[in-house]
């Protein structure tokens, strides 16, 4: 059974790459990149630092970080390799244990799992002493690997289920602000730590992580090096039991998702009799944008931000990172000058890089746009308006918070100029990438983040390309700001004016290029967004 699933997954990955040079390129680049990261991790763990404290902390931190990556990366947009769609296996007469084994084997084949296993196995030569120690460290690596593979699936299926239920939606509403409030208070409370705060905080963090399941596995590696093999094996019980629990949770959620549908959501009150100005409820009261094709696209995209479970989760993650940005200003002394407010512009810009794939949530429904006459430039403008509203709101959330912490209120207008200019760059580049290199969002009934194997690779490749281009284009603005902060203050205000003009130029150029191509190639974009491409 193991061999069957192993070969099936390999065949599916191979067939998925056929006939698409872009997919092959994405796979090759990301596989190489994952290989480099894996070798670096291997090397780091194989040659741990001599300092006893750091030596003990390294596997705990590494194991926790790898686990965090497995859980977070799918949710922020990279998807999860489910080339072998679990819902299809549900049709086969397989016993639960066979199904679990098969799905685990299928999940373990791919670029991510191989790179993880390779990277973590550096702990075997680095911490293993004599055969017994090697065996225990290898067992810890294996347990951590199982934890990562099943953890990512357990979390995403649980989140899929939660986000699809009405109670889950409400819980998300309550949990997020609560999380934001608690983390903000913690960040503020940590302020008086002083200049040594980052190191102390890191050390304290590892102290906490050690008591989490991946931390237990990492600590077992440290114990094995000290020759305490029995204690190390005892430490492995917690992550092993957690992995088993995660597998069971994953299976239970898969079964429930496969056999249930999303509860019907009705909006309160009928909009049919509402004033014609609301156009049947598409435009909310006080709608700030035009009520035409551009406005309709913006209104639809903004509704999707909340109504699409996957986008809702992404926005939740964005908010969590926003709190992280504010907390970093509170915690890191080097960021605590009044100029720290300018970081809010950089932060909002980083999130606006999501404009790289603006048609992803449209998927094959994009046919409605293609079937309608009219200028597809309006679709791009509408999507940009929605994005500007979202990332602008993020800026308006973060910048005053940082200003309150750093006392840099005077820098807010400059930060606003910078963020508008930087948005111009990210949307200009994003428009071209969105029409030329679109990747539809996954669309599975059992796991919102379940994607084709190489889809994460394609996303990674496009993100890297677009990020590099954005950084190159934003470099003049960054250089002016840096020079203004370090050498001559008046340059800062020149940077604001320059950013506005330069951002507008880049935006107009990007929009012209993207709209020009799209006018003649809407059917091609539709084909790239359609299920045949995504399947």
């Amino acid at each position, binding site marked *: 059974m193991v061999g069957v699933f192993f070969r099936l997954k390999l065949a599916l990955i191979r067939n998925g790459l056929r006939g698409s040079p872009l997919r092959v390129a994405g796979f090759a680049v990301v596989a190489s990149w994952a290989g480099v990261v894996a070798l670096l991790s291997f090397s780091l763990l194989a040659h741990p630092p001599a300092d006893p404290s750091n030596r003990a902390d390294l596997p705990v931190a590494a194991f926790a970080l790898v686990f965090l990556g497995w859980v977070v990366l799918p949710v922020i947009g990279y998807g999860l390799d489910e080339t072998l769609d679990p819902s299809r296996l549900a049709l086969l007469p397989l016993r639960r244990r066979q199904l679990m084994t098969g799905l685990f084997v299928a999940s373990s084949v791919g670029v991510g799992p191989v790179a993880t296993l390779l990277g973590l196995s550096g702990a075997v030569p680095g911490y293993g002493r004599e055969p017994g120690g090697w065996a225990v460290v290898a067992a810890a690596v294996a347990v951590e690997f199982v934890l990562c593979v099943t953890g990512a699936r357990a979390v995403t299926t649980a989140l899929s289920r939660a986000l699809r239920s009405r109670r889950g939606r409400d819980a998300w509403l309550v949990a997020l602000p609560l999380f934001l409030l608690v983390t903000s208070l913690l960040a503020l409370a940590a302020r008086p730590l002083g200049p040594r705060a980052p190191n102390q905080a890191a050390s304290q963090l590892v102290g906490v992580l050690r008591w989490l399941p991946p931390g237990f596995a990492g600590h077992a590696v440290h114990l094995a090096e000290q020759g305490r093999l029995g204690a190390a094996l005892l430490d492995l019980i917690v992550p092993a039991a957690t992995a088993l629990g995660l597998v069971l949770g994953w299976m239970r959620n898969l079964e429930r998702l496969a056999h249930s549908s999303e509860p019907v959501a009705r*909006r309160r*009150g009928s*909009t049919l009799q509402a004033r014609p100005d609301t156009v*049947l409820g*598409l435009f909310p009261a006080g709608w700030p944008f035009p009520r035409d094709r551009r406005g309709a696209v913006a209104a*639809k995209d903004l509704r999707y931000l909340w109504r699409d479970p996957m986008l809702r989760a992404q926005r939740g993650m964005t908010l969590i990172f926003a709190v992280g940005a504010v907390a970093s200003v509170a915690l890191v002394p080097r960021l605590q000058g009044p100029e720290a407010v300018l970081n809010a512009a950089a932060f909002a810009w980083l999130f606006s890089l999501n404009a790289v794939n603006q048609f992803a949530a449209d998927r094959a429904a994009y046919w409605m746009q293609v079937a309608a*006459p009219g200028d597809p430039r309006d679709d791009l403008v509408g999507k940009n308006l929605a994005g500007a509203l979202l990332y602008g709101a993020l800026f308006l959330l973060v910048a005053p918070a940082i200003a309150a912490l750093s006392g840099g209120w005077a820098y807010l207008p400059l930060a606003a100029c910078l963020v508008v200019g930087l948005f111009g760059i990210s949307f200009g580049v994003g428009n071209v990438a969105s029409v030329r290199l679109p990747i539809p969002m996954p669309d599975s009934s059992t796991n919102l983040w379940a994607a084709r194997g190489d889809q994460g690779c394609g996303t990674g490749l496009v993100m890297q390309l677009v990020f590099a281009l954005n950084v190159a284009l934003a470099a003049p603005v960054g250089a002016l700001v840096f020079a203004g902060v370090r050498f001559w203050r008046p340059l800062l205000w020149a940077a604001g004016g320059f950013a506005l003009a330069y951002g507008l130029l880049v935006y107009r150029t990007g929009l012209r290029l993207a709209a020009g191509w799209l006018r003649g190639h809407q059917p091609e974009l539709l084909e790239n967004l359609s299920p045949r491409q995504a399947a």
Partner: protein
Amino acid sequence: MSVPETGPHAPPRPDAALSTRGLSKRFGERVAVAGLDLDVPRGCLFGLVGPNGAGKTTTLRMVAGLLRPDAGVALVNGVDVWRDPTRAKAAIGVVPEEMRLFERLTGAELLAYHGLLRGMDRHVVAARARELLEVLGLTEAADTLVVDYSHGMRKKLTLAAALLHNPRVLLLDEPFEAVDPVSVRTIRAVLDLHVATGGTVVFSSHVMDMVERLCDRVGILHHGRLVAEGPLEAVCQGRSLEETFVELVGARVIPSGALEWLGSSSG
């Protein structure tokens, strides 16, 4: 039996609502549509039938401007769909086979969205959408997200979107699939009304009875080619459409001795 009335690359009929000349599409090695020449006169209900993979959906998608042909032309009311898409698409309403819609909008929002995409006045959009939802029995579901619609409801909602801008040519891919008999009757009435006011309907279907009852003209596609086209009586010549269809495309006969295990006690 009638053969295609237009020769290869003959000029399109002047009264045609829809014409194709040499329309072709290939997916890899497989030829989906092979140089199709077709004329559909204005004001008729035209049924496009053919076995699975005959090229019906591909043809309709190419005529609607959703899929680029490898060769040939598609004209709607004399306007080339691929040279002047803005003018051509203004005259077309389309219901594609795959019901991918913006599922996180409500039915009412989706119609509003569709109307605004087409540059319609928002007051007109609101008034027509209300009426269409009422006629198609979707008023109760107007504020429900499309993701919660049944397959039949999606068909009706897509038909409402296709009719919203009052197109002169309707292209419907399997419009009656998974639709209940009451709704079929409603859709029929809407299509009849559309044709009675000078509109043209081209629809594909596997249901021969439906095509026979509804259409005044039919075209039978096989392997991407038109094997028969014309008024229903001329194509069928006294037989049922199903008999004509099977004769033209050939029925697959199960060889004797095959599938003997079916229904036996072995697993």
